[in-house]
C-alpha cells in the first residue's frame, strides 16, 4: 500500500517537474508547494490534466476540475488516488 502511494506520488512529481520545466530552472517541489507560484498557468494546467489522465488511465470528472485540485502536489495526489480507488 505504502509503495503504491509512493509510486503514485513519484509519478505526479515527475509530471509536474516536466510540465513546469523545473529541472531547467533548477527548482524542485515539495508536497505542499504552490503550483501557481511555480508557474502553473491556465494552458499548463490543461496540459497537466491530460498528462495525469493518460498516465493513470483516469478521467477527472467536472467536480474535480477545480482550482483547489490543482493547488499543490498533495491536492493532485488526493484527487488521483480517489479515482484510482474508485476504479478498483
Amino acid at each position, binding site marked *: 500500500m505504502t509503495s503504491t502511494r509512493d509510486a503514485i506520488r513519484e509519478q505526479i512529481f515527475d509530471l509536474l517537474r516536466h510540465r513546469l520545466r523545473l529541472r531547467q*530552472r533548477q527548482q524542485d517541489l515539495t508536497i505542499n508547494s504552490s503550483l*501557481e*507560484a*511555480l*508557474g502553473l*498557468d*491556465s*494552458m*499548463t*494546467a*490543461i*496540459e497537466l*490534466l*491530460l498528462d495525469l489522465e493518460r498516465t493513470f488511465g483516469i478521467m477527472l*470528472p*467536472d*467536480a*474535480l*476540475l*477545480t*482550482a483547489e*485540485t*490543482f493547488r499543490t502536489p498533495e491536492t493532485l495526489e488526493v484527487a488521483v488516488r480517489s479515482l484510482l480507488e474508485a476504479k478498483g
Partner: protein
Amino acid sequence: MDAFSEIDPIQLAVTAGQETFRAWASDVDARNRFPHESVEALRRLGLLTYFMPRANGGPTDFATYCSIAAVLAEECLSSALIWAMHCQQVAILVDHGGPEHKHVLDEVERTGALVASVTTEAGKGGDLLTARAPLLPEGDGVRVRRVAPIVSYAEYAAFFLLTMRSAEDRHEHDVSLVLVTREDAGMTVTGNWNAMGARGTRSVPVTFDLLVDNNRVFKKPFRQIAVQTLIPAAHLGWSAVWYGAARGAFRRFVRQLRQPENKFRAQLQSDLFLSRLADLRVSLDLMDSMITRAAARIDSLRHSNADVASYENITLHISLNNVKIAASRLAFEVVDRLIELCGLAQGYMKNTALDLERVFRDLRSATLMYHNDRLLGANGKLILVENSGAEAIWRRPDGLQPKT
C-alpha cells in the same frame, strides 16, 4: 485632428486608401521603406486615435475597427498593418493604462505619434503570454534590458509597450507590460527587415537597455491585458487586414472584367471561368462572416463592461484563434488562385494594375505571423476540455497581485 464626429471613419479610410495608399504601395514595397505618405494621411485624417473615446462621440467599436482595417488593406497591406497594430497599442493604453500612461494618448492625439508593440523574444518560441527577460529594480526605477527580434515600425514609433518577466524570481508566465519612450534613449535597431512581403512594416530587430520610472509598469498582469484587449484586437485586426488585401485584389480583378479592352472578355462566356471566380467569393464571404461575428461578440463584452473572467471563456479563445487561422489561410489562397485564374501576364508580373504579385507576397506572411501551428496546438488542447468543468481551472485567477 478630430474628424470622427462629423465624418464616418470608414469613409475617411476609403479616402486615405484611394488618395494616398494606392499611390505609394508599390514604391514602399520596391524600396523596402516605411510608408511615410500613408501614415501621414492617417495622421491628417485623425485615424491614429481610433479606440480613444471622443468628447463628441464617434465609434470606438471592434466592428468599425475591422471595417477600417479591411478598407485600408485593399490598397496597401503594410500601411494597414501598421495602422491596425498601432491601434492595438492605443486600445491597451485606453483600457488598461494608468494616469502615468495618459500622456502617450495625448501625444497620439496631438501629433499622431505611433505606438509599437514589443512581444517577440529569442528562445521563447513565439509564446505571447511568456517573457524571459526580467524587470530589474535599479535605484528608484526599473532597468529594462530586452532583445526583440521583430518590432514592427520600430524606427518610426515614439512609444513602445514591452512584455517583460515581472521580476527575476518570478516564473515566465508572470508577465508585466512596461511603457518605454524613444526619449528614454536606450533603444538600438540592430538589423534590417528584408522580407518577402509586408516590407513597409519595417519589422526590425531591436535591443532595449534603459532605466525607467516604476510607474511605467502597468499594474495589471499582462495576461489580463492580453486576454481582454490585445488578443482580440490583434487577431481581428490582422484578419481584417488580410481579408481586405484579398478583397481588394478580387475587386480590382472583377472591376475590369467587363471593360471592352479586357483580356478576359472571351472567358466571361465560360462557365468554368465564372464558377472559379464565384468560388473565390465563397472564401471572401467566409472570412467576412468570421470576422464580423467575432467582432460583434467582443463588442458585446466590451459594451457590457464584462470582467476579465468573461474573456477567459474557452470557446471564445478557440474562436478568436480560428478567425486568425482561417483568415491567414483563406486570404492567401484567394490571391494564389486569382493569380492562377489571371495567368502569367496579369497575375505573375510585378506592377500591373491588379498588383497581385505584391499582395501574394504580402499575404504569405499571414500564417507565419504568430504561427498557426502554435494556435492550432493550443486549440487542440482547449477542444479536449471545452464545455467541461475545466473552465474552472482555465479561468481561475492568476493569483498575481496588482503592483502597488
